[in-house]
Structure formats: structure tokens, C-alpha cells
């Protein structure tokens, strides 16, 4: 049996099966959540390329699966990112139990995850663009409930993600020529440019970011959070794969300057925009953009430490954005909620309000919460190589603090007595999520150190 069959084939088949069971929403969510956990567990325990003894049978878990001339390759070093992806999936599905997501969320979400895993493992890599495009297309019915007209955000999401595909494919084509003619600077520049544009569209990098806040304000924040967490995570891992594969790309000095510039612009623009934003779901969108900016800044450090920061940033990001999305979805469903609408929320729904505040301030980098330790570490490294950029990033990052404080001001403003009339199960989920944010914020060491294992898959980046 090949590893690809296990981590791509089984989820895809399961997605098809659960599509027919989609009316049993809770069952689907729970079963798919459990499947994600199981796949994460298998990624942790099974030796890729080794032999498994199961019920007296010896099964070889092959690294490569060749289909239609394309190969899907998983190596032992890939187990960490498989674990990360499926733990993320399980995390998201567990949360979905208490959120009003559409019936299609569970099966299509699983298909999206399977396609994204396929994108990471396919060789030659330019086919990754096709799998990501497939994931994008599968995510659309998940984002728009049946019968609803797609908004501007969804349309723009499809446009920009689709525009990425030809650029990445062109980049792949040019890259193969560059491999043969490494001294041809013009070709090299073309390859880098195509690749940069492709990633810019995928990651909603400035100035192609406008679909993110539009999307978060149009669809269920939890489902939007799913898309906005999975796609950037996979694309970032893919970018590491590219850097790992092509020496000419790693050695292209301008790349790191560009990453730093773009990362800083994203943080600063996101920070300014979020500080003046009135709609909660759009704040969430800008926070995602800022997080992407910080990840780019970590990559721009061009060092082992930078890569470690890059990987460990995932924990705080995942936890905070997932909990924020959960609380937003629990608060509003699909309705637009502004600062005026949440006046006094701390009194009427103290847990939901507290969780929104905690997760927002966590993404902002409030000490004691999940994002702070690694964010500070990133700034410490950045200030050594680019003090001016670090200064502006520090200031720009403050925008999310301003947003959090505006939220606090609005939510706390009330003359009413405190009520605890919230549903118990969502409250339990939100409180557990917030506790996780606090625990990671207080004890960041042990968890983040394990995540550095993600880099095992990229041996040339050590």
C-alpha cells in the first residue's frame, strides 16, 4: 500500500461516501473529525517506506504512488506536516459541531484537505497548481449555501486563486529550463517573477488581498476561517518545498528582500485597515492577512531560526483564528455584525465576548496568549537584520491592538446586569479553545519545539 493512498485516497473516498450522508450533518462532522484524528495518528506512528505488521499481515507503506504518469511522493520527513494538516482538520471539525455550518461543509472540507495534501506531494510540482485549483473549486459550494447568490468576495476569491494557477504552471515550466541553463539571468528572473505572482495570488498578498475581508463578511466566519487557514498553510508549505527543491531560488538574494518588503506591507496595511474597521468579520479577514505577512517576514530571515519561527507560528495562528472564527460564527452566523451591534455583549453574552476579545488580542500578540512568544521572537530576529522594517512592523502590528481595544470598549459598554444565558455546549468549546490559547501562551516551549520537526521534510533548508 502506498502512503498516498492512505492520506489522499482514503480521505477522497470518505468525502464521496459522506457526500451521500450529508443530511446527517452531525454524524458526518463527527465521523470526519475522527477520521482526521486517525489519519494524524497514523502519520505519527506509521513508518513511511517501512513495513507495518497488522493483524499478522506485513504491509509495506510505499513512498511513491504513480498514477497517470504523475507521482505522489511521501517521505519519512513528511510525517510532521501530515500530522499538522490532519490535526488542523480534526480541530476544525470538532469546532464545527457547535456552529451552524452548511450540510456540504463536512464532505467537501475533507475533499479540500485531500486535494491540498495531494498538492504537497505531487511530482512534478507544477501539478500542485492544479490540485490547489481543484481544492478551490470544491470549497465554493462549501462557502455558499445552496440557492444563495455568490457575493463579490467569493467571485474575487475564485478569480485570484484561479489566476495563480497559470502563473505557477508557467513558473514550473521556466524552472525546468533554468535548471538546464542556470547562468541565464533573464530566464531566472522570469521564473522568479511568475512564481512570485502565483504565490501572491494564492496568499492574498498585497495588492491582491481585497477578497479576504470581503469573503469573511459574506460567508459563515467559521467556514471562511477553514479556507483562510488551510490554503495559506498549504501554500506556505509548498513555498518551502520550492525553496528546498531549487537551489537557484534559494540563492536568489532579491527574493528575501522582496519577501520582507511584501510581508511588512501586509502587516502595516492590515494593521491600519483593521484599526479602522467596524465589522467584526472583516477584522478577522485583516487579521488573517497580517498573519500571512508575519509568516512571510519569518521566511525573509533566510536562516534556520527564521524557518523555525515560520513553522512554530502555525500553532498560535491556528488556535487563535479557529477560536475567533468559532466565536464569531456562534455570535452571528452569517449576519454582518458591527461594533455598534456588539455594544454590551460582555454583559449579555460574556463568554462569547470574552472569547472574541481573547482570540483577537492573541493574534495581535498580547502577552500570555498563544501568538506572543513567537511573534516577539520574530521581531527580535527581524530587528537585527532590518531595523527600519521591524519598527514599522511593530507599529503596524499595533493596529490589531487598537481593534481589540475598540471591541472591548464597545462590548463592555452597558448598564445591564451580567447574564449567562448562553448555550452550554458552544460555551464549553469556546472556553476549551481559549484555555488552549492561554496554555500555549504560558508554556510555548514544549509545543513549539515539536513543530520544528516540520522542517525535516525540507532537508536542504536545514
Amino acid at each position, binding site marked *: 500500500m502506498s502512503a498516498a493512498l492512505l492520506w489522499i485516497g482514503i480521505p477522497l473516498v470518505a468525502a464521496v461516501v459522506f457526500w451521500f450522508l450529508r443530511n446527517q450533518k452531525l454524524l458526518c462532522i463527527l465521523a470526519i473529525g475522527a477520521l482526521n484524528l486517525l489519519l494524524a495518528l497514523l502519520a505519527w506512528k506509521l513508518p513511511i517506506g517501512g513495513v507495518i505488521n497488522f493483524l499478522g499481515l506485513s504491509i509495506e507503506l510505499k513512498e511513491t504512488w504513480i498514477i497517470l504518469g504523475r507521482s505522489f511522493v511521501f517521505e519519512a520527513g513528511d510525517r510532521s506536516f501530515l500530522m499538522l494538516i490532519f490535526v488542523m482538520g480534526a480541530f476544525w471539525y470538532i469546532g464545527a459541531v457547535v456552529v451552524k455550518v452548511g450540510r456540504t461543509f463536512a464532505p467537501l472540507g475533507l475533499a479540500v484537505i485531500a486535494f491540498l495534501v495531494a498538492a504537497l506531494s505531487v511530482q512534478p510540482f507544477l501539478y500542485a497548481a492544479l490540485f490547489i485549483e481543484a481544492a478551490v473549486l470544491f470549497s465554493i459550494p462549501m462557502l455558499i449555501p445552496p440557492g444563495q447568490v455568490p457575493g*463579490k468576495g467569493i467571485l*474575487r476569491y475564485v*478569480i485570484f486563486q484561479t489566476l495563480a494557477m497559470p502563473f505557477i504552471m508557467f513558473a514550473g515550466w521556466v524552472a525546468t529550463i533554468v535548471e538546464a541553463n542556470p547562468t541565464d539571468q533573464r530566464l531566472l528572473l522570469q521564473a522568479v517573477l511568475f512564481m512570485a505572482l502565483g504565490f*501572491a495570488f494564492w496568499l492574498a498578498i*498585497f*495588492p*491582491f488581498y*481585497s477578497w479576504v*475581508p*470581503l469573503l469573511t463578511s459574506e460567508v459563515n466566519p467559521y467556514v471562511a476561517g477553514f479556507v483562510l487557514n488551510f490554503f495559506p498553510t498549504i501554500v506556505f508549505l509548498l513555498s518551502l518545498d520550492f525553496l528546498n527543491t531549487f537551489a537557484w531560488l534559494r540563492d536568489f538574494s532579491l527574493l528575501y*528582500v*522582496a519577501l520582507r*518588503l511584501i510581508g511588512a506591507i501586509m502587516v502595516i496595511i492590515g494593521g*491600519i*485597515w483593521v484599526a*479602522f474597521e467596524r465589522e467584526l468579520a472583516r477584522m478577522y479577514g485583516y487579521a488573517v492577512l497580517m498573519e500571512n505577512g508575519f509568516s512571510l517576514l519569518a521566511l525573509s530571515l533566510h536562516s534556520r531560526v527564521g524557518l*523555525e519561527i515560520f513553522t*512554530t507560528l502555525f500553532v498560535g495562528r491556528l488556535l487563535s483564528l479557529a477560536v475567533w472564527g468559532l466565536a464569531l460564527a456562534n455570535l452571528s452566523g452569517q449576519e454582518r455584525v458591527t461594533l455598534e451591534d456588539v455594544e454590551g455583549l*460582555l*454583559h449579555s453574552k460574556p463568554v462569547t465576548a470574552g472569547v472574541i476579545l481573547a482570540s483577537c488580542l492573541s493574534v495581535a500578540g*498580547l*502577552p*500570555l496568549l498563544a501568538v506572543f*512568544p*513567537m511573534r*516577539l*521572537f520574530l*521581531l*527580535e530576529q527581524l*530587528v*537585527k537584520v*532590518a*531595523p*527600519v*522594517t*521591524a519598527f514599522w512592523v*511593530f507599529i503596524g502590528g*499595533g493596529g490589531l*491592538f487598537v481593534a481589540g*481595544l475598540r471591541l*472591548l*470598549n464597545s462590548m*463592555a*459598554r*452597558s*448598564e445591564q*446586569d*451580567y447574564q449567562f444565558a448562553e448555550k452550554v455546549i458552544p460555551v464549553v468549546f469556546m472556553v476549551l479553545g481559549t484555555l488552549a490559547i492561554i496554555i500555549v501562551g*504560558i*508554556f*510555548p*516551549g514544549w509545543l*513549539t*519545539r515539536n513543530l*520544528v520537526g516540520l522542517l525535516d521534510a525540507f532537508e536542504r533548508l536545514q
Partner: protein
Amino acid sequence: MLIIVLIGFLLLAGAAILIIYRTRGGMGVAWLVAVVSAFLVWVAVLVLRWQSGVSLNLQDWRPGGEEFSTLIFQFDSISWPYAFALVSLLLGVLLTASTRIQQLPNPWAWTGSMGVTAAGIATVLAATPMAVILSWTLVDLIELGVLLGSRVQRLLTQRVVLSFSARLAGTLAVVGAVLYSDYLGKPMTLSKFDERAGIFLLLAAGLRLGVLPLHLPFVEEPPMRRGLGTVLRLVVPASGLVILGRLPPAVVSPQLAPYFLMFSSLAALYGAVMWLTAKDELAGRPYWLISLAGIAVACAVRGRPTAAPIWGIATILAGGVLFLYSVRQARLFLIPAMALLGLSGLPFTPLASGLKGLVVLPFNALDVVLIVAFSLLLTGFTRHAISEGASVEGLDRWVQVVYPLGLFWLALSFWLIGLFGWQGSLTIGNWWVSLICITLTVGLVFLMRYGKLVSADQERAEWLFLLFKPVGRVLAAVFRLDWLYVLIAFVFRLVQGVVRFLTVLLEGEGGVLWALLILTLLISIFYSGSLP
């Protein structure tokens, strides 16, 4: 380990109080457990004065492997007096709670006081920037929770958020100090850091204390009044004051020093005037805090950071005596008088070492301002101490014993710190400055008594308020910074309009084209080589 035990013991005792109160319904037993626990911690902290090297090191707290990644909490010459002062305050609050049991039985407040004190101790023991950042945030979040959770407090919501914002800005200033040190290539610890980074720490403490820039979010004192209110009001500034003692002597460049000094002296003077004229000691509490904090900051700015801690201790302990002095009797006046004597700065009194930072030769106009401010503080203390309060009559006999004991414990702790708080704490100080201040104070008190400005009879003192009210109103309007908030709101709305316009542009129908245009612009800038 010992530090974890101390803090954990306080937290567990706090929880135990609630359990006892809920399960056995025994208010008395719950109170006794609280007092005994606080007393044990007080004794333990006192003993630690003579133990060296008591610290809690959490290495490799997060990835990084640098000094900054380590969390250290330790007892040293700067942190011990603060830790001792906080525990003494807790004990004082619990002992004097005996007078409040009949009016407002509230074990939640005792548990809250113990929790806040535990967090406060962690804050003052913080010896690395990361420990400071984390513990400051913890205390701020606790305060935010308590204030927002307090019923009457809701009217002051905006003030609470502003106060939290200012403190958060202070915490971010510490982060700024860390980053600046990294930029200078000298990773920061609190015992060793580049002087140029010190200004960030000064700013951090100033923001936290409401001195730099001068701001008073709580001109109307939150109505928790005594007990938990006193603990909360005093623990939070302590966390900012303690860091002043760790600053290098040349924390501010000579060019900037006059401005910093002007701000802090102004804060001290303004606070002192308002404290003197406040209706009572609780109404004047925010001014007491800001005035003494202003003097402490001034000490640090003038290159006498070692003089700063005692001002913080005085804020907590001498202030604590007065703020808990609710039930009054002629013979009980001896206790605030004991605190007042300690506050006088006379040779070999606790504050004597602090006066070394109040006036630094060569003498200049700001020295006069600080001397006047300090004299007004002493006068105000006297005024509030001799004004009328609730009567001892009707209180149980045990309360009549325990309540003065609580006050005495605070005054005694103040003196103990003055006697052996750190090497050199018992000193002759700036005796001539203390003489000037005492003379001024005595003169003012005499004048006010003679002119019946200060009186046990509140009605006869009324015209004092009438005299100062308009002045106070103008000063309050200026220093509450409402005008600044209005200005900020105006600018905010202006920029918000621009941002909205750009949003409409980028998210509108032509958004994709705009995005392509911006991309072209970026690429052209990139290739022109005009990047930072």
C-alpha cells in the same frame, strides 16, 4: 521553588476561603483562615530578607535560547521591599476588614485581594524583561476583569478601557526596549542593559503610573473603596514603580531630561494639590498615587533611581494606613501619625533615603516644585488623617482590637522596611530638605487650622472646597486629557474616512484593475532600487 510555594499558597488560601464560606457558612472561620494565611506569608517574606539567592528560573521558556527567553523571579534589594509591602498591605486589609464584615460581608473580596496580591508579588519579583512583560499583563488583566465585573463600575467603562490601553502601551514599551537592545546588539536583562534602552523602560513605568504623559483615567475613584479597592489601586502602580529602581543612573539623555523632569514634577504638584483639596482620602487616592509616582519618576530621571523604591513603598504602606483608616478615634490617630512620621523624610525615618532623589544639587526651579509638592502631600495626609470618620462605638470588642492591629501592622512594616529594607535604607538622608518640607507642612497645617481650613468639622471646611473647586475643575479638565481624547477621536475619524475611501476603491468594481496598477507601481519601485 519557594516563590511558587508562596504565590501558590496565597492562591490556594484564597480558594480555601471561598470553599469554607460556601460549605460551612462560616464568615468568621473564612476570615480567620485568610488572616492566618496572610500572616504566614508575611513572616515567610520577612525571613527571606536574610536569605540570598531565592529565585525561580524558568529557562528555555520559549524557543530562542537567549537570555531573554528565560523567566526569572527573584528576591533582591529592590524586589524584597515591594513584596514585603504588598503582603503587609494584604494583612492590613484583612485585619481591618473586621470593621467592614458587618456592613459588607464579602469573602470574594478577600479571595480577590489574595489573588491580586499573589499576582502583584510575581510582578515585583520579575527580574527579566519577559517576566516583567508577562506579569504586568497578568496584573492588568486581573484589574480589567475586576473593574469590568464590578457593578457600579459600568459607568466608567471607557475610563477602564483607557486605563488598560495606557498600561498595555507601557507593556509594549518594554517590548520596545527589548527590541531596541537587540538592535544595539546587547540582549537585555534587567540587571544589565544599554542605557539608551532605559528610556523605553522609563516610558513604560511612566505610562503605567499615569505620569508620562500625565493622565488620570480614574479621577472618579472606582467605588470599591476600601478593602479590595485599596489592594487593586496600590498593587498595579507597585508593578510599575518597582522597575524604576532598576534603571541606570543616566536613563535619559541630558537633552531630554528637563522635559521628562518637567512632566513628572508637574504630575507630582498637580496630584499633591488635588490630594490636599480632595473631599476625603478615598476621593484623593488617585492623586496620592500620581503625585508620589511623579516624585519616584523624577528621582529616576535625575539619576537617583535607588531613591525611587522607597517612594513606591510609601505609596503602598503610608497610603494604605490612611485608606484603611475608616473607623476613627483620638487615640487611634497615633497610628497614622506613625506613618506620617515615617513619611516625613526626617533623618533615620523610612523616607529619608527617598529625599536624596527629591532634591539634587545644583538647586533649580523644579526642586522647588518637588519640595512644594511633597509638603502639600504631607499636609494633605495630615488633613485627611484628622478628619472625621466612622466611630468605634458599637463595634465588637474583638474588632476594636483587631482593627487597630491591622493599621499598626502596616505602619510597622513601613518602618521595618525603612530600618533594614536594603543596605543603606537607614540613613540621615537629605536632612535639610526634610526640615524645609516639615516646616512648610507645619506652617500650612497651622495656617489651615488657624484659618479653620482644616477641621474635624466637615461643614466648616466646606469653603476650602469652594475656593479650590474652580481651580480643580480646570486642572481636572486639562489633566483628564478629555480634550486629547476628543482630538484623537477627530483625527481617527478623519483617517477612517480616507481608509474607507481606499477600501471602496479596492473592493469596488474596479478593484482588480487597481490591484494590477498598484502591483505595477510596486515592481517599478522595486526595480528602481529605492527600497529601504
